[in-house]
């Protein structure tokens, strides 16, 4: 069974990460042993950019460009980047890319951070006995496929929904899911439009790696690959549209895992969620040479955290929004 092999690989990855305990990790990408942009060791190759496909590094460069506030020149967006030969797609949860598309986001550090957060919280996820899980903005399908595999063996009655605004992404996701023997219902839509009414309060787990790069507002309304990173002002435009939808969709015991960038002002995001009744904590924290990523978990406060005696502390500052789920 494909699924079992994948699960084993995941477990190995999990062992490397070290046990089921929730964790906070702060890895400088250039110090990590699985570094994908190592500048000294390894054979390097220059990627031939003869097609229109953007490599991960190119996507990253694009993001870096956006962050500098520069506009990439249309038609001159090919960038030659050297990268390590063994920097192939499968990293993290060892999900194979069976299909790609120039307009679909290839899994990147942010995707890996999100899956690592799910792996780090795997013990809780398995006990959670989720009935419905959802990913908003599935891109290549890397994250939703990983989630289905993580929960797969032990939680057979879980059903998955996933959405993307980019039609090409929904098709790539379908192939990725299929290749790994898992299923999710895929909907080509804006956030969860069309599902919002009937799925209210039904999602036990929602995962989101949103477009979070600070850009102009025009870019948010572009199509294709641009919408995978273009986050508008402070990278918050799409995030701020997603949060109220997530609040509607989550069940009383629902959890949200979301990737954010330091530039998104995560403490303010936690405050917004706090006002809706959610506690939060950082599951993974990771700095690469370009960005500082946080994966934050949110849950409705006052439900199980009080029972567990994990009452959110109320010290000052960022820490005050984090409970201990």
């Amino acid at each position, binding site marked *: 069974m494909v699924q079992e092999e994948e699960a084993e690989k995941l477990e190995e990855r999990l062992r490397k990460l070290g046990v089921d305990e929730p964790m906070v990790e702060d890895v400088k990408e250039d110090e990590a042993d699985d570094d994908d942009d190592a500048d000294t060791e390894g054979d390097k190759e220059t990627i031939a950019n003869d097609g229109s496909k953007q490599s991960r590094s190119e996507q990253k460069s694009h993001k870096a460009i956006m962050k500098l506030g520069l506009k990439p020149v249309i038609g001159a967006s090919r960038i030659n980047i050297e990268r390590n030969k063994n920097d192939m797609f499968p990293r993290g949860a060892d999900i194979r890319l069976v299909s790609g598309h120039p307009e679909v986001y290839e899994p990147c550090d942010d995707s890996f951070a999100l899956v690592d957060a799910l792996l780090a919280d795997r013990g809780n996820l398995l006990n959670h006995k989720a009935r419905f899980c959802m990913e908003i903005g599935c891109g290549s399908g890397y994250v939703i496929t990983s989630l289905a595999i993580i929960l797969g063996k032990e939680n057979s009655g879980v059903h998955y929904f996933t959405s993307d605004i980019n*039609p090409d992404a929904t098709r790539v996701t379908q192939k990725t899911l299929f290749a790994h023997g898992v299923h999710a219902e895929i909907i080509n839509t804006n956030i969860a439009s069309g599902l919002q009414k009937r799925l209210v309060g039904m999602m036990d787990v929602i995962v989101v790696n949103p477009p979070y790069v600070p850009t102009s507002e025009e870019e948010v309304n572009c199509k294709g690959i641009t919408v995978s990173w273009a986050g508008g002002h402070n990278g918050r435009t799409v995030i701020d549209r997603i949060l109220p939808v997530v609040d509607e969709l989550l069940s009383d015991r629902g959890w949200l895992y979301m990737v954010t960038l330091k530039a998104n002002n995560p403490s303010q995001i936690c405050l917004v969620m706090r006002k809706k009744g959610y506690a939060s904590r950082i599951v993974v924290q990771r700095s690469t040479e370009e960005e500082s990523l946080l994966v934050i978990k949110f849950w409705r406060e006052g439900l199980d955290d009080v029972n567990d005696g994990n009452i959110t502390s109320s010290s000052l500052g960022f820490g005050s929004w984090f409970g201990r789920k």
Partner: protein
Amino acid sequence: MRLLTHNMLSSNVKGVVNGFPLRLEASSWVEKEVEFNADFLRSMFPKIDWPALAGAAQKIGYAALPDTADATMLESEDFLKKFHHALLEIHVEEGALVCPESGRRFPINKGIPNMLLNEDEV
């Protein structure tokens, strides 16, 4: 697209008040076996709009579901099996979902419904 999803989708076009259920037009579908889970079905039953499910199943030639259903039927293994089949095992591959109020068509291609709206529809 499973009929479960059909049961969860409604028209999102601006101004539409009653956008559910979407009328299903299916030109091709497949059946895929899914592990039977009675607990899931029992817990889902109250969330399911039964006439919408039975109607959609009928559209694809699966007429085994009763027109109406109530919770007492969940005791019957036979009923659960049919409910399971209709809800999870029939996948619509090609077709459309039609808004009952505005007539707007949402295409289904390769099993993926497209609920994207044009600018003037949001």
